[in-house]
């Protein structure tokens, strides 16, 4: 599974992209965030406040409780601020 990070999530983790292979217990995006947080102090810092995170599965916005299903690409980022 490709995981993408943007904005300060990307900065704290130190990369905008990684490939991961989460265990079966990781069912939804919140589970994935929780699991990823253990990978490094940067991950832990980026994911410290899940309420500040938003996500997309295969390039569609989803709530954090959305199931991963057969997702190929999951993105985790702060609330958007365009326009």
């Amino acid at each position: 599974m490709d995981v993408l990070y943007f904005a300060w999530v990307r900065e704290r983790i130190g990369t905008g992209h990684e490939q991961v292979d989460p265990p079966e217990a990781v069912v939804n995006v919140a589970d994935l965030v929780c699991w990823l947080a253990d990978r490094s102090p940067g991950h832990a810092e980026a994911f410290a406040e899940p309420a500040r995170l938003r996500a997309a599965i295969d390039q569609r916005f989803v709530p954090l409780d959305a199931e991963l299903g057969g997702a190929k690409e999951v993105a985790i980022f702060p609330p958007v601020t365009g326009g």
Partner: protein
Amino acid sequence: MIRVSVQPAPIDLATEIAGAEGRGAGGVASFTGSVRGDDGVTELTLEHYPGMTEAALIGMAEEAWDRWKLLSVTIVHRVGPMVPGDHIVFIATAAAHRREALESCAYLIDRLKTDAPFWKQEKRGEAAAWIEPRASDEAAAQRWT
């Protein structure tokens, strides 16, 4: 006609507004958002999610097209580093009558603020800060639902 562009190049307003006029349009409404220099901002950088951004913008353009029976929709969003006075976004909608053009243009900028994967970072000299979303933007987007 739907035109969506996510580009590091400056937005050429003259070209975009001329291109936005649909055949038979009685009215064209546009909105141009620019980098404000108040508050000591020296640079603004727009990050986005390539691929998803374009799809999100095309999706909103299509929704506006159907809802207001538009003759053209143009959304151009700049990405990368910008300075005060630079144009960040240009939206134009053309319709037979003014009401449809004006409403759909307001709709698109409200939706774009909350439903497209862009992130803004402000620099004040050496200090960089990611902009926090504003509750008023969320409220503005909600009024169209």
